[in-house]
């Protein structure tokens, strides 16, 4: 009697085999491919850093490339792609909050946009 799931559909959905599979993840071959991508992207980033002609677009390109690396590690090495969705919520939620707070601080200290005062936040 104890430990028996109820007939409630939403409860069974939480405990269905699709959630929390025993050994989520890809195989070693996939991990090697991801590693190759990570190295290639890093090489690209450093190459862009040294090309003066790309100085104007350096920041957006680097942010995109590093986001790509971040996502590859999170999805494949940290298994978020294959694992229970709760783990994604628990990671992505705070991540979004952290980025939001960072952007807010940049705004409040006058580094992006305007708060309506010159040199806003200067101490």
């Amino acid at each position, binding site marked *: *009697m*104890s*430990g*028996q*799931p*109820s007939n*409630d559909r*939403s*409860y069974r959905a*939480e*405990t269905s085999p699709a*959630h*929390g599979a025993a050994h989520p*993840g890809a*195989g*070693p071959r996939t*991990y090697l491919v*991801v*590693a190759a991508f*990570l*190295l290639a992207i*890093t090489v690209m980033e*450093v190459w862009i*850093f040294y090309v003066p002609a790309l100085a104007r677009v*350096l*920041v957006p390109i*680097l*942010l995109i*490339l*590093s986001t790509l*690396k*971040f996502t590859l*590690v*999170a999805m494949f*090495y*940290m298994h978020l792609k294959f694992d*229970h969705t709760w*783990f994604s919520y*628990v*990671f992505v939620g*705070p*991540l979004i*909050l*952290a*980025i939001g*707070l*960072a952007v807010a*601080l*940049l*705004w*409040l*200290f006058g*580094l992006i946009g*305007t*708060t*309506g*005062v010159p040199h806003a*936040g*200067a*101490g």
Partner: protein
Amino acid sequence: MADGHAASIALAAHAAPAAEARGLVSWLTTVDHKRIGLLYGTSALAFFLIAGFEALLIRLQLARPGGQLLGAQRYNELFTMHGTSMVFLALMPLSAAFFNYLIPLMIGARDVAFPRLNAFSYWVFLLGGLFLNASWLVGTPPDAGWFGYAPLTSKPFSVGPHSDFWLLGLLFLGTSSILGSLNFLVTILNLRAPGMTFLRLPLFVWTTLVTNVLILLAFPPITVALIFLMFDRFFGTPFYLPAGGGSPLLWQHLFWIFGHPEVYILILPAMGIVSEVLPAFARKPLFGYPSMVYATALIGFLGFGVWAHHMFAVGMGPIADSAFALTSMLIAIPTGIKIFNWLSTIWGGSLRFRTPFCFAVAFVAMFTIGGLSGIMHASPPVDLQQTDSYFVVAHFHYVLFGGTILALFAGIYYWFPKVTGRLLDDRLGLLHFWLMLIGFNLTFFPMHFLGLMGMPRRIYTYAPGLGWDFWNLVCTVGAVVQGFSLLVFLANVARSLRRGTPAGTDPWDGRTLEWALPSPPPAYNFAVLPTVLRRDALWLTKHPDARGPGLADLRALVTPAGPIHMPAPSSWPLLTALAMIVLIAGALLHLGVVIVGGLLTALALLAFATELVPARANHGGHADGDHEDPHVGATGLDHRKLGIWVFIGSECLFFGTLISTYVVYRGRSLQGPYPHDILNVPLITVSTFVLLMSSLTMVLGVAAIQARDVRAARRWLLATAALGGVFLAGQVYEFNHFVHEGLGLTTNLFAATFYVMVGFHGAHVTVGVIWLSALWYLLTRGRLGARDEALVDMAGLYWHFVDVVWIAIFTLVYLIQ
């Protein structure tokens, strides 16, 4: 109706609670959530009384103009310690007492997810509180306010160890809060009884869930802020000093990014308590349960978007002021939903005006008053008149005393019978209630007038003839009345513990699962874990309606069917906390003590972490009466894996704050060397490759152990640790090179932010290397085996997170200069 209630009482009366260990040692080594709850409760009440006495001294000083009881310095110390103690040592731990005692009972669990970590959180809290109050004994208590604004707390203006006690104490206490929250979050997510879906949870469990999410996300920013302050005070960095390019506003932003969610951390548990008490005494279900859940979640979410309403007077600009004013007004909406739902719960109910109900109703009224003055503060032009005046003091005491404290007393009176088996005397309880309510309003309502008449905060005396004399005297009389009310409460507790009326199982005809168990419940809580069929499960089982009962079998909850495995006591939580306090105190004493404390802490943590590792690997799996694997909840997820993800989520805020500060402060150094002068991109590119490859070896190690290939797993773990070591060697080389090039820790703002951020990342890598090395060793010695993949998986997740943080640092620091 009465039959169902009587049936639950009769069943529980036949249950035989297991004999519990007695004596001091049993309390020092307990990992039982109920005992830990009692420890939190009694400790927090003691700190509450101390902080209350501090407030009484403040009021005695201000009773008359030109008061001579206290000098200015002592007055500053008293209001600082009163505020700090009330927030961190009284209200938060009192809420933690309720979480600890009730959450496993309400969700139908045997204990929390991590019992030893739970005990550790308590001992860290107690020792942190004692450390903070030890400052009185050496004559240097904190004196810069509970909010510790820089540069007042910076070395030029705060020379003695006052602020050192404060920042070190809060850093230590923050550890307790974060670890406790991780525990409760995993417990609520993963240990719910079968059938206990999210929308069947008692509302107190929901408020606990959101509160602990807030703690996990709000404490890292203040941890970083305190670390910066520590570096400023101990090592001379300029994080908050304009003379070095720093900004005091950074402190304010980081403090209030924590500080505003903190006020919701303080009020949400109280709202949860009231949401349980009102329905019980109105004999009606909570009105609008789904909207209460959504309102709770919305308050938690919006709470992160309002912090700068504490800073309307600093000159952020009209756009920033307007944005935060808007969000601050928006947050009144979910709060209003709750207030109307509470009123609707009471409306038309069969009311019983017992003490818990009186406190709960008073909460609604007093909190509403405090909320109304809060809405006024949300308007910047209005706030510019009210800020730093007694109007603000009135506001926050109405929400925190009239809100949180009254609700906590409602909870104490409500659940005291379950905890002790005896009822608190209702006549004394009502006397306590009326004295407290009258005293509270006498103390704090006149503060609205005083604020509007211009009386500023934090002044130790005032001149006669300003029109403040009468109301200050009234406030002081109110404080004395409150003091008497607390004496009545203490007398009630002492009397009731000895001669109180036996409570039985269910004196209030309660609605939640704990009322099905004996009073007090046995160590194992439920003989058989319940199967929940509906919301308000116990109530509907006692008083079934047309849709049937709420529980599958009430009798099974209290009738033991066989032996039940419970976690063994442990002394390592206390010993580890003691080692850590030596480390913390050493910062005020001598470097040698820091080193000794650090070594003791490292050893204690190692012993703590490996305490449960068997002499030989467990190849047969572990079974108890309820689950095949005690680490796996009814959701099928491993507690430990969920726990490490929750920790990683919290770390996102920690590193996010460090990295944000680096970016905010970029370009503000007053002198070189600057980043482009000194950063060695080729060297660090190689380091980055090394760390990325360590992530590959780590994931191959996890894949190997999942494939039951222990030998391969050991190889990959060793490779990962080795690569981590190479990365660290590169960092050491880089730091050494920088110092030789003239970039020391205090050289400029770039140096301070760089060394602290990259240094903390390096510290995390170091912890990872030690962790992996320990795993490799235990696998090699055969103490861990193929079935311990969860432990390797946890280490892997931590390691990959450290890697992705480096991806961000490499880009933002080295490539975007």
